């Protein structure tokens, strides 16, 4: 196992995970995971199916509460009470504030079907951040233009293609102006053609220097977009490093096998 | 196009099809098909998906009523009334008698889910042929032994593997002691491993000299088991002959292309 190199040195850590453990019933999915994401860093989580990538990502914004370990956002630890599988969020106000700093994009988009695209994007700024409508609307439209679906603002999600929906979901996440963007396989529910559109948008964000943590199964994309790649295996970080190290100078036999399989899929 | 050679010469024709046409709405699936199956002959129908193989087979026992043309079983024409797409079976008693002479094995088995395997096999002899229960039961058990699932007599279809279900379906068809057995892709719903069991049983029947018409996508099997192979294309018989002629000395460009594709699948 390698040690994480200080990527983008000097920048402060935005997300810190310390010894995260998580079990579902008897199945231990995460067995002590630690890493940090610094300002402007793009981190890719890779690993075979069931290795716990989604679970790890969901622990960051406490959609799953870890059984052990801490999550720090901007140096502030998320308060949890209890222990083991009964561990719970201790402070509802804190978690709501922190969650609105973390923009999450789901594999299956999870756009709110009963709102138009514009309403979807404006919802969190209006309702959670309580910002002024006129300001939010301008920003939301700008964001939709940025991801390339400005003309669809008044359509409902069901009227959009998958790629358009995912881009709307990205705009929705961006509009809360989060410190970090979290992506869980943002393209795996899409056809290869639609995938391209979404990957382009994510690349754009990476180039802008946005902090991002993404789960992906697309190794080429991971290589081209990330500063740091983490390979999860059986609940542990089996190997991590720059794309060059991980893909170029693979150490672990597991990772070799995984990359081999991935290139043939 | 070649002419059918008199395979097993001297035997009488059991099934005769004369100029069969069949359309579904505007789509003309069969555009005039004629062939005959003699006593003891094994005929394979091959062709690409959608070429009308299943439809043709289903016309033989009138699960689909052809729009034009006649079907003769043992020299007796099945009586139809009306014409075109409103053509119907004219004589319910005749068709029931004839159908019980034609054992059909479906792609998806279609075992009756609410009966045990033994009850499935005994149903038609008891209910349609009105034979004595004791006699039928002995025969049914013998038939199940023959196809190798004697021990499953009292299980329900859902408790069996696909291969076992298909063998039960073959036993069910055999137990009415039909003049001809019709198989519609009897193995295509099965895993390759299970397929083997079923093909073995069909081979056994072929070797016993049973008259059979089968739709198959397995060219090796068609070659090894049949006396006569018919290639359907766009509603016509594009080519037919002995396996040696059809597979060895292919004439039609379509068939060449088809065989080529099949061998790479």
């Amino acid at each position: 196992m390698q040690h994480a190199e200080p990527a983008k040195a000097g920048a402060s850590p935005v997300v810190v995970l310390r010894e995260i453990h998580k079990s579902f019933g008897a199945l231990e999915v995460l067995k002590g995971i630690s890493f940090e994401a610094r300002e402007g860093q793009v981190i890719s989580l890779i690993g075979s199916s069931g290795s716990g990538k989604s679970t790890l990502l969901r622990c960051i914004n406490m959609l799953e509460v870890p059984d052990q370990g801490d999550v720090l956002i901007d140096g502030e630890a998320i308060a949890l009470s209890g222990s083991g599988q009964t561990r719970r969020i201790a402070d509802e106000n804190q978690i709501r504030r922190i969650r609105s700093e973390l923009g999450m994009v789901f594999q299956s988009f999870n756009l709110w079907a009963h709102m138009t695209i514009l309403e979807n994007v404006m919802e969190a700024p209006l309702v959670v951040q309580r910002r002024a409508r006129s300001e939010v609307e301008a920003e939301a439209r700008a964001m939709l233009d940025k991801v390339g679906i400005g003309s669809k603002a008044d359509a409902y999600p069901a009227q959009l293609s998958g790629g358009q929906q995912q881009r709307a979901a990205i705009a929705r996440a961006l509009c809360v102006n989060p410190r970090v963007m979290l992506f869980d396989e943002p393209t795996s529910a899409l056809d290869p053609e639609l995938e391209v559109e979404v990957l382009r948008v994510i690349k754009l964000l990476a180039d802008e220097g946005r902090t991002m943590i993404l789960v992906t199964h697309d190794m080429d994309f991971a290589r081209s977009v990330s500063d740091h790649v983490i390979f999860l295996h059986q609940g542990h970080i089996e190997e991590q490093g720059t794309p060059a190290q991980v893909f170029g100078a693979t150490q672990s036999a597991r990772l070799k096998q995984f990359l081999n399989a991935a290139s043939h899929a | 196009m070649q002419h059918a050679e008199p395979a097993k010469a001297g035997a009488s024709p059991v099934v005769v099809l004369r100029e069969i046409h069949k359309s579904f709405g505007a789509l003309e699936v069969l555009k005039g098909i004629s062939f005959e199956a003699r006593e003891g002959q094994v005929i394979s129908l091959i062709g690409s998906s959608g070429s009308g193989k299943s439809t043709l087979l289903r016309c033989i026992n009138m699960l689909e009523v052809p729009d034009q043309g006649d079907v003769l079983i043992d020299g007796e024409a099945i009586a139809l009334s009306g014409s075109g797409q409103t053509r119907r079976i004219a004589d319910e008693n005749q068709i029931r008698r004839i159908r019980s002479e034609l054992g059909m094995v479906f792609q998806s088995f279609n075992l009756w889910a609410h009966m045990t395997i033994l009850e499935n096999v005994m149903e038609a002899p008891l209910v349609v042929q009105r034979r004595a229960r004791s006699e039928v039961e002995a025969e049914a058990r013998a038939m199940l032994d023959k196809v190798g699932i004697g021990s499953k007599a009292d299980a329900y279809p859902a408790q069996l593997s696909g291969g076992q279900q298909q063998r039960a379906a073959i036993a069910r068809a055999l137990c009415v002691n039909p003049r001809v057995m019709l198989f519609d892709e009897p193995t295509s719903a099965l895993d390759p491993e299970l397929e083997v069991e079923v093909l073995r049983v069909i081979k056994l029947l072929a070797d016993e000299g049973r008259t059979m018409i089968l739709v198959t996508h397995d060219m090796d099997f068609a070659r090894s088991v049949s006396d006569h192979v018919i290639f359907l294309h766009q509603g016509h018989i594009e080519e037919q002959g002995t396996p040696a002629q059809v597979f060895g000395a292919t004439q039609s460009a379509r068939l060449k292309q088809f065989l080529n594709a099949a061998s790479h699948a």
Partner: protein
Amino acid sequence: MFDDIAFWVSYLTNGKHLTWYASFQFTIFAALMGGALAVVFGLAGATAKNSRFLPFRMIGWFYSSIVRGVPDVLFFLFFPLAFEQGVEWLVATQVCSPEMIAAQTAPWPPCREANWFLGTTEYLLLASVSLGLVYGAFASNVIHGALRSVPAGQLEAARAFGMSARQVLWRVHIRQMWVYALPGLSNVWMLIIKATSLLSLLQIADIVLWADRLGAPNFLPSVGLVHDDWRWRYYLVLFVFYILVTWLSERAFEAIMRRAGRGILSEAQA
């Protein structure tokens, strides 16, 4: 203490209470009979809806929409009365002479000789038929849907073996239909059970009528135990009775489902 118990035991087992307990038979009979008839009418309705013959389809449609478009109480009252009048009218066309009709002062029946006396038994039967008709409309919908849920291949296989249309229907189609219909029919059954509470509206001395009579306040020792208004206690008993029957029915349907689903439901294999 013992005197108390003895008193209550004897009170609760006096003839009036025994008659009350006995009247549960009417409720149970009406439920079972109504349920059986609902299935029969349901099958008939579903067959009509599936018919190739347009007028039958129309009748099936009309039956299930009209009966369900009006309150069950209305139909429940209307049917027995209308049936009685129908029979009396038919009889009248045979037996009544013009003089007899002229002599009749009451608005119905046309003449006295055509009168059909309805007692508890007749009303109970008519009530059951009435329940059967109303809930048969619901059942016909359930069965119609269930018939269409049976996989086409199952029917095709039967046809391919030379079964007649009737054999296909009874030996395969309807046998398999039950599994798909049972959840819906269980629902209909619960409705029928609850509708049996309306029997007293048809002059049947059922559990509801007796609960009212037993609970009503009594001031006269010569009539029986003097007590206040106890009706709500008696109705509470009925309330609990019906909940219990519902609960038992649910358990029973689960068991039936397990049996009927053998081979068809994958859960049933365990």
